[in-house]
C-alpha cells in the first residue's frame, strides 16, 4: 500500500468509527424508548414549521440577510482562532494587525446597522 493511500486509511477508520457510533446510539435509543406514535409525531421535523404546500414556496428575505451576516462573521472567526493560539508569539505586530482586521469588520457591521439591515421589519 502506498504512502498516500495509507494516510487515507486513517480517514477511512474515522468514517467507520463515526458510522458505528451513530448507528449504535440510534439502535440503543430505539430499543430503550417507549413507542406511542400519534399522527402529529410522525410528521417530518422542519424546525417547527408545518411542511405543507408546494415546494416552490417563497421564504422571507429577512432570513437571508441574517444568514449572510452569520456566515460572514463565522468565517471571520475562523481567522481569529489560529491567531489567538499564537498571540504571544506575534507580539505587538499581531495585535495591530488583528486590530485593523477587526476594525474593518466592525466598520462593516456598523454600516450594515446604520443602513437598517439589522432591523426586523
Amino acid at each position: 500500500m502506498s504512502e498516500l493511500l495509507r494516510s487515507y486509511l486513517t480517514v477511512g477508520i474515522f468514517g467507520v468509527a463515526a458510522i458505528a457510533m451513530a448507528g449504535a446510539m440510534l439502535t440503543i435509543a430505539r430499543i430503550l424508548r417507549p413507542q406511542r406514535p400519534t399522527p402529529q409525531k410522525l410528521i417530518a421535523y422542519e424546525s417547527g414549521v408545518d411542511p405543507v404546500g408546494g415546494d416552490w414556496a417563497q421564504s422571507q428575505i429577512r432570513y437571508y440577510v441574517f444568514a449572510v451576516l452569520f456566515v460572514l462573521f463565522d468565517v471571520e472567526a475562523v481567522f481569529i482562532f489560529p491567531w489567538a493560539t499564537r498571540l504571544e508569539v506575534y507580539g505587538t505586530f499581531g495585535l495591530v494587525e488583528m486590530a485593523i482586521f477587526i476594525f474593518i469588520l466592525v466598520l462593516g457591521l456598523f454600516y450594515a446597522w446604520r443602513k437598517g439591515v439589522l432591523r426586523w421589519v
Partner: protein
Amino acid sequence: MATQSVLAFVGPSVNWWALLPQMILLGAALLIMLVSALAPKQTSTPFVTVTTMCAAITSYIVATGLWNDVQRDGPSSSIASAFGIDGFSIFFTMLILVALAATALLSHGYLDKEGIDAPEFHALLLCSAAGAIVMASANDLVVMFIGLEALSIGLYVMIAMHDRRQEARESAIKYFVLGAFSSAFLLYGIALTYGATGSTNLIHIRDYLGAVVFRDQHLLMAAMALLLVGLSFKVAAAPFHFWAPDVYQGAPSPVTGWMASVAKAAGFAALLRIFFAAFASHRIDWTPIVSVLAAVTLVVGAVMAILQNDVKRMLAFSSVSHAGYVLIAVQAATDQGTAAALFYLFTYTFMVLGTFAVVGAMGRDDDHPLANYAGLGRSRPVLAIGFTILLLAQAGIPTTSGFVAKFQVIAAAVNNKNYVLAGLAMITAVVGAFMYLRIVMAMYVDNEEQKSSVPSWHWSTKVVVIAMVGFTLLAGLVPQFLIEFAEDAVPILIRG
C-alpha cells in the same frame, strides 16, 4: 531566554511603499463607507466622486514614483516574493487607475440619474480596483486568486445594484454563477500546479520547471489547462465568452465599461504572468492551445457581432474579438508579443471606456437598438465625431491607436511565423470593421421618423469621451512613447 528568541515571530518583510496604491484605494473605500454610515442624510454623490478621484490620482502619482524606482533600481518583489514590484505590475496599476478615474466620472452622472446609492457603488468600485491591482501584481497564485475574487465580487454587486431592473439582476446572477464556476476551475488549476511543482509561488514554479524534467507531465498539463480555462473566462475568450453579451447588455453602462476594460486587463495580466513568465520553459505545450483559442475567439467575436442589432451586444462581441487579438500576442510568447499585448490592452482600455461612456449617455439601459443612434451626427455633432473616432479605433483604422495596436499584434504573429493566425486576424479585422461602420453609418443617416429624443449629456461624460478620444488619437499619431512604455513593462519574475 533561548526559547523566547526561537519563538519570536519574524514576518516577511513588507515594502509598504509598493503596496501604497491599493492601500490608498482601500482606505478611500473605507472612508466612503464610514462617512456614509455616519452622515445623517444621504451622502452626496459629488463627495464620493471627488474622494474616488483623489484616491485614483494620489495612487497614480505613487505609481509613477514606483515606476521611476523600478526603472532606476530594477524590479523586485515583496512579502516573501508574493507580490511583484516590477514594470509589469505598475503598468497595470496605472491602466487600472485610469479606468477607475474614468468610471468614477461616468458613474457621477449615471448614479444620480438612475437613483443608485453612490457611496456603496464607489466603495465597491474602489475595492474592485484594488483587487485588480493585486491580481496583476501577484507573484503567487493564491494572492492572485484573492485579487481576482476581490475584483469579481465587487463587480457582481455593481452589476446588480440597479435593483429596479430585471436585466441587471439577471446578468448579475449569470455572471456570479458562471464566475464561481470558472473560479472553481482556476482553483483546481492552482491546486494541481501546487501538486506538480510543490509551490504556488510563480518564481519557485519557474525555477522548478526550468530545472526539473518530468517523466510524467499529466499533472502539470492538467494544471495548465485548468488555469487557462479559469482565466479565459475572465477575459471572455471563446468558448468561455457566453456570459459576455448577456452580462454586458444587462449591466449598467459604466460597470460594463469597467468590466470590459479592467476585468479583461487584469485577466490578461494574470495570464501573462503565469504562462509567459512562470511557464516559460513549457511554452511549447501551451502556445498551440492559446493560438487555437485566439483563432476561435477572433472568429466568434467578429461573426457574432455582425448579427446583433443591439449596440451593447455588438460591443460585447467586439470585446470578445479584442480578447482574440490580445491572445494572438500572448501565443507569440516573445518579449515583442507581450509588449504588443500590453500596448493593445492599454489603448483598448481607453477606447472601450470612451465607447461605453457614449453608450451610457445614450439613454436608459433597457435596450440599445441601433436605431437610437440615428441622427446623432446632427443632434450631438461633436460627441458623434468622438464616438466615430473611438469606433474606428476599435476597427483599427490608421491614425488611431487601434491601428498601431493591431499592427503590432499581427507583426508579433508574423515574426513568430504564425502566418495563419496573422491572416485570420486581418480577415476578422475586416469583418469586424463592418460592424463598427454600421454604427457610424447609423449615426450619420438622417432618419426623421426615428429621431428619438437624445437625453442631455452630463459634463462628466463629455470630459471622459474627450479625454479618451484625445488619447486614442495621440497614441495613434505618436505611438512611440507608449510602445516604449509597454516594452519596459514586459513581466519578469524576481525573487524579493
